[in-house]
């Protein structure tokens, strides 16, 4: 089992969710986040005050998957979240020690297998 953490553009979130749905990746958590990965800052002006937005709005997806699903999940996010411009985000894959489904007490692979 792996935990896939992906940081993507908020404006690509719908595309990413659609792609994941088509790959039958069902269980996921998203968090609205702010971050910075080297993209050019956008300049905003409010009356005489000019600011550069160093931190950019991002969305973080946390997806726990069984090993056979890692590859297709990553591919789906890469394909759907990409614009080619700096700032498309990152994908991190972390080992998972243990998973429980709270409702049933199922463990590990069973716990990350979606309900039929």
């Amino acid at each position, binding site marked *: 089992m792996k935990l896939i953490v992906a940081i993507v*553009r908020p*404006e*690509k979130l*719908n595309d990413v969710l659609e792609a994941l749905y088509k790959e039958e990746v069902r269980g996921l958590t998203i968090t609205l986040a*702010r971050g*910075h990965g080297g993209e050019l*800052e*956008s*300049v*905003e*002006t*409010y*009356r*005489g*005050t*000019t*600011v*550069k*937005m*160093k*931190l950019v709005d991002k969305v973080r997806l946390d997806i726990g998957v069984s090993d056979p699903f890692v590859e297709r999940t990553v591919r789906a996010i890469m394909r759907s979240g990409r*614009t080619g*411009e700096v700032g498309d985000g990152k994908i991190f894959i972390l080992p998972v020690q243990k998973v429980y489904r709270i409702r049933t007490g199922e463990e590990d692979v069973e716990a990350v297998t979606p309900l039929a």
Partner: protein
Amino acid sequence: MDSMNGADTAWMLVATALVLLMTPALAFFYGGLVRSKNMLNTLMMSFASLGAVGIAWAVLGYSLAFADGNGFCGGGAYLLLHGVGLESKGSIPHLLFMAYQGTFAIITAALISGAIVERMRFRAYLAFITLWSLVVYAPVAHWVWGGGWLARLGALDFAGGTVVHVNAGVGALVAALVLGPRKDYGRQALLPHSVPFVLLGTALLWFGWFGFNGGSALGANASAVLAFVNTMLAPMGTLVVWMFLDLARTGRATAVGAATAVVIGLVAITPAAGFVPPISAIALGALAALPSHYAIVWRSRTGLDDSLDVLSAHGVGGAVGALLTGVFAVKVWGGADGLLAGNPEQLGRQAVAVCATAAYSAVGTFAILKLIGLVAPLRAPGREEGIGMDVPQHGEEAYSSGEGAILVMPDNAPAAGAIAVPEGRS
């Protein structure tokens, strides 16, 4: 020496301010219906009309609409407000009449923005509404109110059902077709980001509409009272029917639906306000709910991305109102007799007015957009559409947390260590 009347002037001063308020109200009505990343852009499309169209009106538009000319268009006598002073026009000062009519031109152009939100380049939009107010709005206003051919024909339009609403509604349809749908249209759910703003905008529109219809009597008189009361009753009829339609269709009466219903009721009573008895106004409002309701349901299943349903609300609502004016009008209340009072010809005149306005608006809007399109792109790049129009087009966010914002010091910034006080934040 003149027939100036203090009471009339007082009411028209208030009515002018009321109608001017409708454009910011429209901004919030439309703003609430778009996604938060396009909020400022949508607000600015209405606010910009207060500037661009207002100035165009004073410089040229008023003359094209109300100076003596031919049946199609006014002349240049009032260019740069030349000859528009404190002399009386009817029972109010000419200058006040000009200002009152200017508020109509402003909101009519702003209405079209609802069809092209979330995707149009702001510069192209500015050019579009300015040209549109001069080339499309001013002549049609002349036809109906400036002594043009529809006035001579005897078509009834109390406060602008054809001039404002059919005109803007058809312009919106053409603009949506020329611009094309948003890239996410039909693929993703494009939901209103603030329904409370939609309701707030609706409330202010209704309030302003008392000046729009009540003021179209051009005085504090019995006709104004009839128009005022009809402006109150008709949307109530529409609202009740709409809630039943919502309940029948989905089992729930929606807030966005209620707001839409009030606007459609207001649109529909606009041409009829000073011509129909109050009970007929309720019937007119109630009937007007049906075509617009089904037009909205139908439109959302098509590829036509008239994003905020300007065609269904203003085009269809305005046309239905103008036609029903020819049905319900009664001469003793003002104007002429309609179908129910035994004068079927009036309905024919109303139909001519609707069709002529629709045809002219369609052709004019198409020509202006294609012309601007030759000089510069009409649409923002797809990437900007994804990010939302606010930051790329305006350099601001509607709902900024300010976190992570680095202050850019101007060249004459105070030395390091001094406390920076940004301008405008004192």
